[in-house]
């Protein structure tokens, strides 16, 4: 009985750890603060959702870019727009399956409002990707192949 309890506790702690490692809640204000740090790093922020097929298809490109440029000052953040009710049900199982990291979900409730706070010209469609380095900022409302992604990265890096 005791060992059973220990196993249950470990499983629960493990699940919590996995959630913390793979998917973190972030408010739009926190996100904006994080990506406006002027430190010569390039931030690439991709907004996606598990319900968006083209988004899911392009996710591995970001993973690949991180690997290829692992010695660069490059930070890739994957920000999911999945609904709060879908985080445990859909997003976390998806993340486990794909082994993607650096994934966040927006904790703000009002999508209409927070989309404008992230980028005023964003129509609302996904996927979209933000490329940021110091004061340079480029917003791309398109689906990106690996080739396109790496070209945008190299351009903002210059």
């Amino acid at each position: 009985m005791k060992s059973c309890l220990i196993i249950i506790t470990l499983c629960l702690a493990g699940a919590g750890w996995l959630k913390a490692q793979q998917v973190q809640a972030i408010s739009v204000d926190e996100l904006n603060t994080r990506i406006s740090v002027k430190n010569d790093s390039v931030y690439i922020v991709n907004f996606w959702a598990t319900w968006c097929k083209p988004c899911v298809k392009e996710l591995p490109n970001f993973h690949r870019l991180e690997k290829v440029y692992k010695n660069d000052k490059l930070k890739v953040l994957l920000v999911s727009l999945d609904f709060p009710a879908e985080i445990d049900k859909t997003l976390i199982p998806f993340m486990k399956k794909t082994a993607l990291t650096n994934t966040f979900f927006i904790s703000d409730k009002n999508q209409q409002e927070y989309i404008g706070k992230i980028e005023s010209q964003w129509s609302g469609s996904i996927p979209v990707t933000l490329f940021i380095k110091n004061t340079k900022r480029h917003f791309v409302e398109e689906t990106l192949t690996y080739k396109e992604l790496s070209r945008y990265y190299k351009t903002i890096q210059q």
Partner: protein
Amino acid sequence: MKTLITLLFITCCLNSQAQTLTLTPGSAAPAIKLKNINGKTVSFADYPLAKGFIIAFICNTCPYSKAYEQRVIALNNKFSPLGFPVIAINPNDAQISNGDSFTDMKTYAKSKGFNFPYLYDEGQVVTSAYGAKSTPHLFILSKNENAITVEYTGALDNDTPDTDPSKIKYAEEAVNALLEKKKPALAVTRAIGCRVKWKKS
């Protein structure tokens, strides 16, 4: 400056996905003459008594669009008798978007009980003219004797999961304002959803 030019350059070159500007409120509404799933052509002239239209760009395949389809049906039930019928248009290129062909549209509309025309936009001409960005993307139009005008563009409401009792029903509020001969208080919202699947150029 050099970076900016390079960015502009690659934006142009990479731009295989058509980028058209969304019509702003006050613009003249481009004409529609598209094939409905029943094989008949639909245009504004088919509705001589209409006071306006609710144009809904929706599709068969986007989960975000699907989340709204019952609410689009409800909009038509409520506002068609008051002179604002729903006309739905599938904006996706059938070659790119598997499941959005004309045949698929017929089957889908039947299974979901669409009670409004569901039009196939051959060549994405109307989608491009309106600058629809995503599914769902709504355009609410007013009609007077000599003009059809865009009055509202954007989302149906601000609660996609449909769980918030205090949601703001943007589309309903816009039509209600127009029925009272007023301009919608909120004329543009963001059309959150799946990007329109454009034909590869």
